[in-house]
């Protein structure tokens, strides 16, 4: 399996040289194979979101390299690399433009792959969007002229997910993207996530605090602590893992417990 994403010895310090100095990423390395779906665990401040932000180019790392599909993107501008990276956050409002219609939002996200047309919203793309929306099973395909701001959080997150993946990104980053949704909606959005990732064979990283979910999703689970990789599970070892054993393992590797927010199914 060739590496789709390769993060090599990434280091990032915030407020370096001050008493508040914080090492967010400490010589962190990770390789993700093409089509691999990795779940990421770790307590708050472990560097999970910092890792995502580094990959997205929100800041430049102090040291290290980031390679996406063989290309070095370490110093590429954030909006340029965004063409090949989709990202979803906890807040469903972050990924969509509220005063524009669902159709227009999708057309925006589809810019790089869209059919050549004078108007942004055109029949060919719209037919494609309608099909994709229908696949969500939320009835959004009949509300394409509805303003995004009128949708519920779950609907908006599902639409965001579609937007993040519509341009067939080389990498999908999911930062606790269902944490702000109610349990039922969360399950629905997760099902959609699973489906979209599988259908498009996407390489994906998903941050979660839910141990069950971490083991249930994807093919590999890693744990981060203080900017380092402390655990990397896959294959047989992962298949035999239970949330309880995972929490204990984390404790022994990092010397402290996972945060209270981590849901532990007993």
């Amino acid at each position, binding site marked *: 399996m060739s590496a789709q994403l390769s993060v090599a010895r990434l280091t990032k310090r915030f407020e370096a040289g001050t008493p508040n100095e914080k090492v967010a990423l400490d010589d962190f390395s990770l390789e993700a194979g093409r089509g691999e779906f990795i779940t990421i665990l770790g307590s708050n401040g472990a560097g999970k979101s910092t890792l995502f932000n580094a990959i997205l180019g929100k800041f430049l790392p102090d040291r290290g390299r980031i390679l996406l599909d063989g290309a070095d993107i370490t110093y590429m501008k*954030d*909006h*340029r*690399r*965004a*063409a090949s990276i*989709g*990202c979803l956050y906890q807040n469903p*409002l*972050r*990924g*969509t*433009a*509220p*005063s*524009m219609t669902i159709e*227009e*939002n999708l*057309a*925006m*996200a589809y*810019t*790089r792959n*869209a059919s050549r047309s*004078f*108007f*942004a*919203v055109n029949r060919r793309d719209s037919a494609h969007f309608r099909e994709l929306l229908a696949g969500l099973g939320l009835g959004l395909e009949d509300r394409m002229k509805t303003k995004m701001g009128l949708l519920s959080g779950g609907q908006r997150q599902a639409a965001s997910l579609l*937007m*993040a993946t519509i*341009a067939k990104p080389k990498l999908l980053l999911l930062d606790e993207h269902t944490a702000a949704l109610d349990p039922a909606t969360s399950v629905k959005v997760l099902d959609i996530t699973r489906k979209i990732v599988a259908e498009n064979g996407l390489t994906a990283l998903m941050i979660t605090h839910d141990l069950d979910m971490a083991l249930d999703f994807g093919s590999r689970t890693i744990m981060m602590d203080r900017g380092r990789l402390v655990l990397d599970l896959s294959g047989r070892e992962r298949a035999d893992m239970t949330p309880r054993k995972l929490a204990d393992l984390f404790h022994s590797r990092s010397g402290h417990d996972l945060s209270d927010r981590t849901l532990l199914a007993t």
Partner: protein
Amino acid sequence: MSYLDMLISALGQGTIYAPMALGVFIAFRVLNTPDLTIDGSFVFGMTACAMVAIAGHPVLALFAGIAAGMLAGLATGFLQTKLRINAILSGILTMTGLYTVNYMVLGGQANLYLQRLATNESGIQAPVASKTVYRMFAVAESGEVSALVLSGLIVTLCVALLAVFFKTRPGIAIRATGDNEEMVRSSSINADFTRTIGIVIANGLVALSGAMLCQQQRYADLGNGSGMLVVGLASVIIGQALFGKRGVTAGLVSAVAGSEIYRIILQAAYRIDMPSYAVKLLSALIVTIALALPLAKEKSVAWSKRRAGERESSR
């Protein structure tokens, strides 16, 4: 003056200031950016237009005005996106700088008539009024009606072009920038660029208003720009109060309608002997009232609910 004449005069004014209302709409509503360049770019459009009109090219002068405003917008856009200066301050900086620029364009004076000295048949030098688009375009007996028709054509063209533009790919990118800049970046679009283009378009429109006013009144005056932002806002807000917050095309049309109604209100105020210097205060009041209206509505609803609730519990 008959009521019809007054109406035509008000509509004429409203149409001349309509492109500015469109510019304010784009900056404040579409881009969600408080752009204070407007007072400066209005005059910049005026002065640039005056110079080209005096040189004898009235049509070109309108385009020169638009170009000047776009340049001013480019400066503000640069300050906002590249130097990361606060949006309000960026506008103020450009506007302040423009005062000097405008003064220089007018050749070191505060106002300039659209005329040039020419030697007449008897060999005497006398000022001759420059050609303006409004003089060239006479479709009705009354100059005011002709002016209204011409301005109306220009504004209609602007609205049509903008309505189409905001449906194209660059157009929706600009709208999305005002709505959710992060989403624009994650769609792999340079949001700094779309923001700057938006500000450039807004100020180009504002300057077009300045250029039209310059040719209509046949002089350019540095004082004409002050308070323009409030006038533009008043128009946008009045339009919104009447038509509601709808899509971008409706927003453009309602900005124009707001500009017309604003002038009708002013005309009515003049009718009851309001002195002309009271215009600015009236504009400020209109904007304040319009902005406070939603809150007042909310409070009155809450008040009546509380009253009803108290009555119920005391029973």
